[in-house]
């Protein structure tokens, strides 16, 4: 994921985002709307919990046997007339894709919204070779035209409101009507006219896939607008970049996921467009199909017992919409195409914990557990977050504080002594019963909140005084 490197640590980026009142308003409105609708859509299914368990079991089984299923997928895609490429990392995937596009002398490509191509920074790689990528998902188009970055997995332009979108269209979209208003129907019509031209001209399309089915060699894309369907069927060549974890063993497994995904992501019973294709068919759809299977850190995740559950993710973004942190900061602060709670565990796993942003992401959570509760594949995100926190190289000063505090808090004598010391200090630090200002890193607390003054007598001291040390 090269695109976002050089990002500041999460707390610094988040601090700026929190101060942006327009952004906060846009996010609150959008996340609350989707959150409420999702709860309704999920409540309609009595067997939601069983579906969730089934999805988790299918994914875990697949991941445990990934080697077998990947080979089976390759065989079946090839049999159906497709070509399979294996990419170890982002660089290799970009080289394969740009090579394929260049060999077809295409100067532009249309793209179906794809998290995986965001992950590998494919658009930058294409542009570097003089190929123009055109995002055809409406929100992705808004982001692209605005020279912006997506801030949500499902609704990449969640941070923009209608008025802002109108401005972007008027400024950046060739042929946008001069009298364009911020009426959603008008905005959609402008995008439609703009994109229609691109669909007709493009000879190569690039997509991701929501699922890849091993026993038939089929690929599945679910979407809402139909622009994906245009990309998948009109151009002569279709290139799909798919993470190796997107595999499902068999066709019938799809039933479970097609029940879970739309309800979790857009709060719909069924998404408007589900495109499924198997290799190439004569006189229908693309004449050439290339499947690029991407590792890019996934095998390393798979080897990690706690971390591997993140590979179950189906990119529904339900966790973003319920996250108290995401709701206040938006996606950009996460410095990755994968924002929110799932991003906070995926990005550091795929990229490593080396950069300031990746080392800070596991701490970008209150551990409230709302993400785990809504996850359709039951990824225990809080568990994975605290696990990653334990792998981070802590600052020396913090480490010292924690080691010493563990000695004090971990021993009854140390604890009693600390409580006595605190009680003795209460007349100095909190005359009003409240502390209004604390030093050092704790200042962050008292900037907006009072801290309680220590009690005159701890429970431990009270117990031993009144119960005479009776055990």
């Amino acid at each position: 994921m090269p695109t976002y490197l050089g990002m500041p640590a999460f707390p610094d980026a988040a601090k700026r985002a929190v101060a942006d009142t327009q952004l906060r308003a846009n996010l609150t409105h959008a996340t609350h709307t989707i959150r409420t609708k999702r709860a309704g859509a999920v409540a309609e299914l009595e067997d939601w919990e069983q579906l969730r368990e089934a999805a988790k079991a299918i994914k875990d089984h697949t991941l445990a046997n990934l080697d077998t299923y990947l080979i089976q997928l390759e065989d079946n895609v090839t049999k159906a007339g497709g070509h399979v490429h294996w990419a170890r990392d982002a660089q290799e995937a970009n080289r394969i894709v740009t090579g394929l596009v260049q060999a077809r002398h295409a100067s532009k490509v249309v793209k179906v919204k794809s998290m995986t191509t965001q992950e590998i920074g494919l658009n930058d790689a294409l542009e570097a070779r003089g190929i123009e990528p055109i995002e055809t998902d409406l929100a992705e188009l808004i982001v692209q035209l605005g020279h912006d970055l997506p801030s949500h997995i499902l609704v990449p332009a969640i941070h923009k409101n209608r008025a802002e979108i109108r401005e972007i269209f008027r400024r950046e979209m060739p042929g946008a009507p001069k009298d364009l208003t911020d009426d959603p129907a008008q905005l959609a019509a402008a995008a439609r006219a703009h994109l229609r031209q691109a669909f007709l001209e493009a000879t190569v399309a690039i997509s991701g896939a929501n699922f890849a089915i091993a026993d038939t060699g089929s690929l599945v894309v679910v979407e809402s607008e139909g622009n994906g369907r245009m990309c998948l069927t009109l151009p002569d060549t279709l290139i799909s970049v798919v993470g190796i974890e997107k595999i499902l063993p068999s066709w019938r497994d799809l039933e479970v996921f097609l029940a879970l995904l739309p309800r979790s992501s857009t709060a719909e019973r069924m998404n408007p467009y589900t495109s499924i294709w198997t290799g190439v068919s004569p006189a229908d759809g693309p004449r050439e199909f290339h499947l690029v299977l991407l590792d890019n850190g996934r095998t390393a995740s798979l080897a990690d017992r706690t971390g591997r559950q993140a590979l179950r993710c189906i990119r529904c973004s339900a966790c973003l919409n319920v996250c108290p942190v995401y709701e206040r900061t938006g996606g950009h602060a996460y410095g990755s195409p994968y924002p929110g709670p799932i991003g906070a565990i995926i990005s550091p796993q795929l990229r490593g914990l080396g950069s300031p942003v990746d080392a800070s992401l596991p701490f970008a959570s209150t551990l409230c557990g709302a993400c785990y509760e809504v996850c359709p594949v039951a990824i225990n995100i809080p568990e994975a977050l605290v696990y990653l926190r334990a792998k981070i190289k802590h600052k020396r000063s913090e480490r010292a504080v924690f080691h010493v505090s563990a000695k004090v808090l971990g021993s009854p004598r140390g604890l009693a002594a600390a409580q006595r010391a605190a009680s003795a200090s209460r007349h100095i630090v909190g005359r009003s019963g409240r502390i209004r200002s604390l030093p050092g890193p704790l200042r962050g607390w008292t900037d907006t909140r009072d801290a309680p003054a220590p009690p005159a007598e701890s429970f431990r001291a009270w117990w031993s005084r009144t119960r005479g040390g009776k055990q």
Partner: protein
Amino acid sequence: MFPDTGKAVVTVLERLGHQVEFPAGQACCGQMHFNTGYREDALPMARGFVRNFAGYEAIVTPSASCASMIREYYPTLAEEAGDQALAAAVSEIAPRVHELSGLLVDVLRQPDVGAYFPHRVTYHPTCHGLRMLKIGDAPYRLLRGVRGLTLVELPEAEACCGFGGTFAVKNAEVSAAICADKVAAIRQTRAEFVVATDNSCLMHIGGALSRQRSGVATKHLAEILASTELASAELASAE
């Protein structure tokens, strides 16, 4: 830090006829260390816990967060450390570890503890109680059993308050922004007291309420359950 809560737990349980003991050898459960990534520091605390609490019928803590640490993460700690004795001790002891409201309602089946608290109260379900421990409506049932108490529904009650342990300091601005919405919801209820099952969350919420001079006080559920007509009368005369 919050001795009144501990005293209240003792009061309530003794009022119901139970024998309460406080093993003097006990210390912190280690959650802060575990959650911040210092598992090696949390491990001795887990060992201390099982050593000190072995042999009791029921172990109660007035913190959903501490109870869920023991139930959810002690097994992980033991397993990672390869400490089979600890793992065995944890699996034996963890089912007997209860948060107060869960103990009263689900185990002891005593949702009416004979309390009296003539005030307007709203309840904030803490995340670890709600989503890790799944104490469900136990606190509501207890509060409904309190005579004189008016329970007002908190808007967006299940939203996190933004505390998150070290999160409140490491991401202070985001934490404060989350808290601001919680505090606004609390003030909207015009309650005199906001109640929860975790003093850590209450310290956070209370810190903001106090900074805003909102006049709304925080109170641990145990302290409400401990109050009686007599205690209320004393309080009134003291004022």
